[in-house]
């Protein structure tokens, strides 16, 4: 607003106008950085607080006012957290589930989307509308009957209800893959067909290598989703030895209320894979978003 007032009120002499415009732009830039920096600080503070708290002794946490930076560093809080519950075995369980979900999601969505993007068949438009409409069905609506079905076939207490559905595709990923396929020229497929290749071969040998960026996006997103899934394991896993990290952390939370240093250490450890994945593969997180946004217009 200030810049506008300035622009309207100043003297319209050409040289002065140029200088004033430059100054306005400079003030605007400084203002932008202050705003961006301020918001970054607000958004980062909770994470810094989590890390700092995880390193503090209890005395620093309960003193008033609490310290922001830890005065003494206590790495042993992390050992305490790891030893308070079977951390490594829960991590292994979580990895088994997440790994299977990644395989399922990558294969199924790539496979299904190839049909929608590159092949013509009667009813395709209606079926694709059906795919998109499943995005609007709340998971909780199907959760109870799914549980009943899984319990009747004896899958409750196993990882199967968490893994098997990922092999049948999901709307968002099918949509994302289809967008990516549409950017690949059809001539390539036609040329391969002239060479005698069938669609299964074209999909597995031509399309999978070509759609790698989108597949990595799906892999990362599904890993992240499965790693942080709480509801699924809460519902289907009954035996303590089969717990995932999310359930383990929840149990740990109930056992050690207000032992914030240990709880924060546990939280940091569980979040670490996601944070690392984010920093090393941020491009792929963002690529997925761009693919979605580019087509909503």
């Amino acid at each position: 607003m200030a810049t506008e007032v300035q622009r309207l009120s100043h003297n319209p002499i050409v040289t002065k106008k140029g200088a004033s415009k430059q100054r306005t732009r400079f003030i605007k830039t400084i203002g932008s950085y202050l705003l961006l920096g301020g918001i970054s600080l607000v958004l980062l503070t909770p994470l810094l607080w989590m890390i700092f708290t995880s390193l503090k002794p209890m005395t620093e946490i309960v003193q008033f006012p609490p310290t922001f930076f830890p005065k003494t560093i206590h790495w042993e809080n992390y050992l305490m957290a790891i030893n308070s519950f079977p951390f490594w075995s829960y991590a292994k369980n979580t990895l088994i589930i997440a790994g299977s979900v990644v395989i399922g999601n990558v294969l199924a969505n790539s496979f299904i989307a190839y049909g929608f993007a590159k092949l013509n068949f009667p009813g395709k438009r209606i079926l694709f509308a059906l795919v998109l409409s499943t995005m609007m069905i709340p998971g909780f609506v199907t959760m109870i009957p799914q549980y009943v079905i899984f319990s009747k076939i004896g899958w409750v207490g196993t990882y199967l209800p968490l893994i098997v559905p990922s092999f049948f595709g999901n709307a968002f990923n099918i949509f994302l893959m289809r967008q990516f396929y549409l950017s690949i020229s059809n001539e390539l497929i036609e040329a391969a067909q002239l060479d005698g290749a069938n669609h299964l071969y074209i999909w597995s040998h031509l399309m999978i290598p070509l759609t790698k960026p989108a597949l990595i996006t799906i892999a990362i997103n599904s890993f992240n989703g499965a790693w942080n899934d709480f509801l699924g394991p809460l519902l289907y896993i009954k035996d303590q030895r089969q717990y995932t990290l999310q359930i383990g952390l929840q149990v740990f939370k109930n056992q050690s209320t207000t032992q914030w240093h240990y709880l924060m250490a546990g939280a940091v450890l569980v979040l670490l894979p996601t944070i690392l994945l984010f920093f090393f593969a941020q491009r792929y997180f963002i690529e997925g978003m761009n693919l979605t946004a580019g087509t909503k217009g």
Partner: protein
Amino acid sequence: MTKRSLRQKQEARWGFFFVAPFLIGFVLFMFGPMLFSLIGSFTDYNLTSKMNFIGLNNFKRMFLNDDLFWKSLYNTAYFTIFNVPLTTLFSIFLAVILNQKLVGMRFFRTIFYLPAVLSGVAVYILWMQLLSPSTGLINTILSWFHITGPSWLFDPNWTKPALIMMKLWSAGGAMLLYLATLQNVPTQLYESAEIDGAGIWQQFRHVTLPMITPIIFYDVITSTIGSFQIFQEAYVMTSNGQGGPANSLLFYNLHMWNKAFVGFDMGYAMAMSMVLFMIVLVLTLINLKLAPRWVHYAGGDQ
């Protein structure tokens, strides 16, 4: 001609072959279960011994005799009404200030987006500590300004605002969608607006906003559905899904969960899930109905 139609037939067969997993999954994990839920909602099903048709009794009980049903619906509506507009506005705001030609925007984008990729129990534990009345960061900061902060998760008036605040922190996911769209807006539009003497707000109102209405529309629909499904936050941040002080965090899905998996009152819970489905359907239809009035589709690209 016949050769062509043969090829078409062959391609159609391949087409069905490729989309078959989706169709099978749809029947097994969506349509079948929903049909079962619909039937089950008229029964007293309890997972083990009985499944008798009891007509509309579940719905009668829900609407007339279950105070917690109304309480949970109120809590969920309260959360949705504040959460959807606030996170939408905040994510647009973040996208707009990131959409500048300045050095270091990738760095700020990373920071703005980071909270959105973090989820699950660890994040809830973090916020339980931030919101802790005595040792938490938020009340500590408030105390610097000589403000006595509320008890947040322990005060029924502040539990839902606390959760809304937590959700705002992770608004960066939608921000990326807006940002991707904003970056496709031709810069000439801004330049000509600037020549016409349009200020920051006018540029936003007349150039930016019309371009992002389709994304706002998509965002509002998905986040309404998402908000109506809030569950985990309340389950983890109150002790084992008790619903918090004075049931102020007993959301619709938490109540349904307790009926289904604590009380094994499956018939009743399925009836609740059908009501949830209807609510979400109606909200989505309202959104679709209102869309032509404010959603602006740029000519050319569909």
